[in-house]
């Protein structure tokens, strides 16, 4: 089953190159995404998750590295026709539902934009039917089609973004915090919907989020990022049961639980990057500690983790 849909090789995305305010937003990360899976991506705010997503979908030209989609390099030079094909196969749901919806377009036109570009509807009527269907899919209704984005609440706008992404029937969706603006019941609706679409259409997701219980629920595997690097990658349940990187451990210890009593007595462990005490020139890289469980570590740490893992 494990067919690779996307391969990311040593991807780097630096901003302000050659200037003093250089930011290594993504700094040499590699991972694969298998067809039909959901890969969750979590990590500290500002660690490069959105940038990773945006680079994969070619919103930025990568500083270095490559992204292969079905074996083809996404970042190589392409004809307009080829680009259009990629654009239809890969869609992104954006983190900021306000900035990403054109305020001068009606909801129907926003959702149908991709349908129009790719010529997916044969008549005006078919186009509108499709829009209504999509609105319903994301828990909005027909009456909303003729309205403008500013008339909607934050969560409602996010659902418009989801409907827009689904409109062109992509194979791969990068969902950048698609549900953090939604209330839990609609989160549940959207997540159930995403799972159902995955089952029905074999969709593949890169799911970026902060809500770790939701990420665990939806993801097959989870990658943890810290300062432009991937520090841990493992099957979802393994990551929660056996977090190995100290940053992952601190993340998991900070999940707020919906129980006032536990919250009153909660203890967090914080992460201090100095604990590693890496020597100069020590090679730190992703190493497979156990099958499918990768940790960014030095050879010395690797030995220790492997011993720990056995018992």
């Amino acid at each position, binding site marked *: 089953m494990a067919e690779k849909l996307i391969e990311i090789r040593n991807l780097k995305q630096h*901003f302000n190159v050659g200037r003093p*305010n250089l*930011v290594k937003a993504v700094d040499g990360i590699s991972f694969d995404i298998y067809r039909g899976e959901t890969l969750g991506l*979590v*990590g*500290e*705010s*500002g660690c490069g998750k*959105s940038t990773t997503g945006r680079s994969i979908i070619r919103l930025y030209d990568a500083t270095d590295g490559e992204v292969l989609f079905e074996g083809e390099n996404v970042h190589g030079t392409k004809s307009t026709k080829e680009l259009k094909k990629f654009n239809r196969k890969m869609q992104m749901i954006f*983190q*900021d539902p*306000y*900035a990403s919806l054109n305020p001068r377009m009606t909801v129907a036109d926003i959702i149908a934009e991709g349908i129009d570009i790719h010529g997916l509807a044969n008549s005006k009527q078919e186009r509108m039917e499709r829009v209504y269907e999509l609105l319903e899919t994301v*828990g*909005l*209704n027909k*009456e909303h089609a*003729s*309205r403008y984005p500013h*008339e*909607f*609440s*934050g*969560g*409602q706008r996010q659902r418009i973004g989801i409907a827009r992404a689904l409109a062109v029937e992509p194979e791969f969706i990068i969902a950048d*915090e698609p549900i*953090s*603006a*939604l*209330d*839990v*019941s*609609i*989160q*549940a*609706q959207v*997540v*159930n919907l995403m799972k159902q679409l995955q089952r029905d259409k074999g969709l593949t997701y890169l799911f970026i989020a*902060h*809500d*770790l*219980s939701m990420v*665990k*629920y939806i*993801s097959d595997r989870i990658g943890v990022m810290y300062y432009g690097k991937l520090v841990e990658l493992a099957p*979802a*349940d393994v990551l929660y049961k056996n977090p190995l990187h100290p940053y992952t451990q*601190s993340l998991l210890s*900070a*999940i*707020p*639980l*919906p*129980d*006032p009593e*536990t*919250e009153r007595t909660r203890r*967090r462990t*914080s*992460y201090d990057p100095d604990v590693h005490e890496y020597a100069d020139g020590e090679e730190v890289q992703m190493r497979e500690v156990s099958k499918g469980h990768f940790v960014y570590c030095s050879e010395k740490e690797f030995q220790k983790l492997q011993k720990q893992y056995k018992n």
Partner: protein
Amino acid sequence: MEKILEVKDLEVSFQTYGGEVKAVRGVSFDLYKGETLAIVGESGSGKSVTTQTIMKLIPMPPGKIANGQILFNGDDIVPKTEKQMEKIRGKEISMIFQDPMTSLNPTMRIGRQIMEVLIKHQNMSTSSATERAVELLRLVGIPMPEKRIKQYPHEFSGGMRQRAMIAIALAASPKLLIADEPTTALDVTIQAQILELMKDLQSKMDTSIIFITHDLGVVANVADRVAVMYGGQIVETGTVDEIFYDPRHPYTWGLLASMPSVDNDGGAELTAIPGTPPDLTNPPKGDAFAPRNQYAMAIDFEEEPPMFQISETHFAKTWLLHPDAPKVEPPAVVQKRIRKLSSTFDKPVLVKEEK
């Protein structure tokens, strides 16, 4: 305890192409000095509009305060002019907005935006404002703040923008802080830092906080009291323990049942509340939640339920609390939470409307 804010029977509506959207339909609540009230509820239920109205920030027109009073320190905000509001905003009451991008100025450096508040409301000099801006960014967990103050919003990540907004809101040490989903774009470790920062500010300055969030884990962490909104109304309110350990409204049950828990292995579907939110241009007769409520009775489709009081601090607007209503069992996941709280009255008491 001293009340800092009293909202009384607030109604807010918007004139739109499709008709009048009744976004807030009779909301009343009090806020005490130094307390945190969390507002939770469905997307589109009027949380942002309610709180933006407290700062008179809704666009008027198309928006309009159709009814009600908002007493801030006993003084009604509703009739105040824009000029009078400017003195209150950012100084007495400040707000962290749900969408950082539309409330940060994209053409102004982050540092400058924080400094403006300090210079305007705290009468600081430019150099001390610069220093304080750096310190505030550091407090909200932004690394290398000396460099970051020179950057523009688009150079910040989503969560960093949100933190910049928090820094701006805290800059003036307000008496009332309204935080509209302030931590949704943040990872849990930074979220925890920000929540601690807010609590710290609160204990030092006796700030009152209205905290809007969808994350019930965050509610459990920060709230003293919780108000649950649905369809432009508050349908249940109580102390944090009352809402989490003895919820009474079926919508609150639905919310609590929708959450995945960390032990959920992803096999089972999440229990979403079925159906779609009410159309607020034409709010349904009776209980707005009735069409989606598996416990709905005939009367729910006919007559709007009154408030019932369950304890000194706990209220719910549902016919299920009427003495003639059949006894119903909440969903199993909710039942697991339920505890007997000592504060509960023997029987729910009907709250008479004061008109």
